């Protein structure tokens, strides 16, 4: 059964029952009071009649029957009837249809009180009282109280009509109540549906009621779902952008290679062009190779599980400088390294790649001068810093330089065999180590890149 039907049935039943019981109790108590009133009145009257009938009997030779018949004739217009039992036999009964009932009253209580009762005949209700007369006969007094009983029946009929009308009103009321109670629940259910169907939704009203609290929780949940969905979408967009960029970056050298190869294949060009074509094919192929290596490193930095070794920085700095020896000799740039932090925790291969990329960038974007490679503590954190006095990065491009394939100066990047992945790789490696990469730069003054590693935990802490 639906919840609204249950609420409706409960409200309806309880209201109707309360109304009926109240009505019944009221009608009943009013009726009981009327009857009591009638009995009181009858008793007073009966007492008077009893005295006067006894006195009248003295004028009729002690015979009661005449006075009783006379009184009966006189008072029946006012709804009062009499009956008489002499020597155990009913000798007169003034009320039609009441003879049998009266005959049964041959023995009233003899303590002088009246025995009272009720009777009904020919559609008339009576209060009946009886008492001994001095000669042992029994006088029976009957009062027509149909009016009281009719009142009660009328009240009951009215009450039923009222109940019927009330049933309709209560039904409407109960329906509204059930709707009102269930409204927040229905809204909740609609909202859940919208979220399930991926339709936009609005937040539910929150208050201190039970449903309000549920709504608040639900709002929190849907916001969380929404957030996560957005994050996923952003991630997917980022990936798509990456793939678009990558296909562009691959396509451009491939277009060159294809074009020059075709040129060699189908035209009889002179030696100058031929040499140029071959040079271009070789350099563009190298460019694609570099890109493949970069992509591979990017994938490793992103997906491979890190090892957590103690990476000694002094030998690492030495290896990096050593690997760039030829490049440094060509450009006349010196690398000055200073190692103030003995070791950091991380993956040696990845940290080597990051530092080596940063130093190579610094060398490529410098015209002579020197590159500082150093490590030191700052606010308890371990820092690896590479700074140069080279061309610098314009402020508007500073936040784009970590985007994959982004290059500040395309022609310089080509000349040095770069493919725009270096800083992107460094930032991914930093992220994998929960480290931060910060870049500050001023055009024509130089660039400083810092890898800021989180505070180290002691090994015991990690174990705990």
């Amino acid at each position: 059964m639906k919840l609204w039907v249950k609420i409706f049935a409960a409200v309806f039943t309880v209201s109707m029952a309360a109304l009926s019981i109240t009505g019944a109790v009221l009608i009943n108590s009013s009726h009981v009071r009327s009857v009591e009133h009638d009995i009181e009145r009858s008793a007073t009257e009966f007492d008077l009649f009893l005295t006067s009938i006894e006195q009248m009997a003295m004028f009729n030779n002690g015979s009661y029957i005449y006075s009783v018949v006379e009184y009966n004739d006189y008072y029946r217009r006012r709804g009062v009837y009499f009956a008489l039992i002499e020597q155990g036999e009913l000798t007169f009964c003034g009320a039609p249809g009441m003879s049998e009932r009266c005959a049964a009253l041959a023995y009233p209580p003899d303590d002088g009180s009246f025995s009272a009762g009720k009777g009904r005949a020919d559609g008339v209700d009576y209060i009946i009282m009886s008492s001994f007369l001095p000669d042992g006969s029994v006088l029976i007094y009957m009062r027509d109280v149909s009016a009281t009983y009719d009142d009660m029946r009328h009240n009951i009929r009215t009450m039923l009509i009222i109940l019927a009308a009330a049933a309709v009103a209560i039904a409407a009321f109960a329906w509204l109540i059930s709707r009102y109670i269930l409204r927040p629940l229905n809204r909740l259910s609609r909202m859940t549906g919208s979220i399930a169907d991926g339709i936009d939704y609005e937040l539910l009203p929150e208050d201190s009621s039970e449903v309000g609290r549920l709504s608040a929780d639900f709002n929190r949940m849907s916001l969380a779902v929404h957030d996560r969905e957005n994050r996923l979408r952003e991630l997917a967009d980022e990936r798509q952008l990456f793939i678009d960029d990558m296909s562009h970056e691959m396509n451009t050298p491939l277009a060159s290679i294809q074009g020059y190869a075709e040129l060699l294949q189908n035209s009889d060009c002179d030696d100058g062009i031929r040499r140029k074509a071959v040079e271009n094919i070789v350099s563009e192929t190298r460019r694609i190779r570099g890109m493949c290596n970069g992509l591979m490193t990017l994938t490793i930095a992103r997906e491979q599980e890190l090892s957590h070794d103690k990476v000694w920085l002094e030998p690492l700095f030495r290896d990096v400088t050593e690997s760039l020896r030829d490049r440094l000799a060509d450009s006349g740039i010196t690398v000055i390294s200073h190692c103030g932090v003995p070791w950091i925790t991380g993956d040696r291969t990845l940290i080597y790649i990051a530092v080596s990329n940063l130093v190579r960038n610094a060398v490529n974007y410098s015209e002579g001068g020197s590159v500082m490679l150093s490590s030191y503590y700052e606010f308890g954190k371990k820092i690896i810093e590479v700074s140069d006095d080279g061309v610098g990065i314009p402020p508007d491009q500073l936040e784009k330089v970590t985007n994959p394939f982004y290059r500040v100066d395309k022609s310089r990047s080509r000349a040095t065999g770069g493919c725009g992945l270096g800083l992107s790789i460094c930032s991914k490696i930093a992220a994998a180590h929960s480290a931060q990469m910060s870049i500050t730069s001023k055009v024509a003054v130089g660039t400083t890149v810092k890898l800021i590693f989180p505070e180290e935990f002691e090994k015991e802490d990690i174990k705990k």
Partner: protein
Amino acid sequence: VAQILIVDDEVPINDLLAINLNLVGHIPVQAYDGNEALKLAESRAFDLCLLDVMLPGLDGFELLPYLKKLGVPVIFLTARDSLSDRVKGLRMGADDYITKPFESVEMLARVDAVLRRTGRGKNSELIGDVKIDFDEHRVTKNGRPVKLAAKEFALLEVLVKNANIALTRDQLINMVWEYEYIGETRTVDMHIQRLRKKLGFENVIRTVYKYGYRLER
């Protein structure tokens, strides 16, 4: 001979376009960024501009209105296989687009089509003593008309437009007979023989061993 402005910041691609256009007899002028291209376009008249979309300085979309104002037809080079770039370019008034990577034959065909559409291409060529009128489909040798069949003329036109570039028999069939034709390439050889004989082109239309034919000039 058309003066063609090439705008592309990728040096190898720029050079490649210049070499190919030069081979078929056009005069290429190279620019490597938007500002340089604008300066060049304002300083002299060009018959066509090959314009890359992504450029340092002014990009292709920004440059296009200036070139249109100067009355230079534009073919867009879209490196990314991006439909939206192409649609945007054409809507802004570019005459055609070429997606990278491209085949040089296709690039030359598009260049030629745009030059002809905008009335800037030459409608006749003189090779030795043979004059070819492309608009009227007429060929004369030493002033005397030479009768060529329709397919023979089409074949001659393709060879001339791609002068100095070897074309495979399959490429020739695609361009002249306009259907994919696999295997049977003797038709091409027969038409080449007839052209050589009728025009005295035995040394002009060269056979490239195991490849196809090349018209040299």
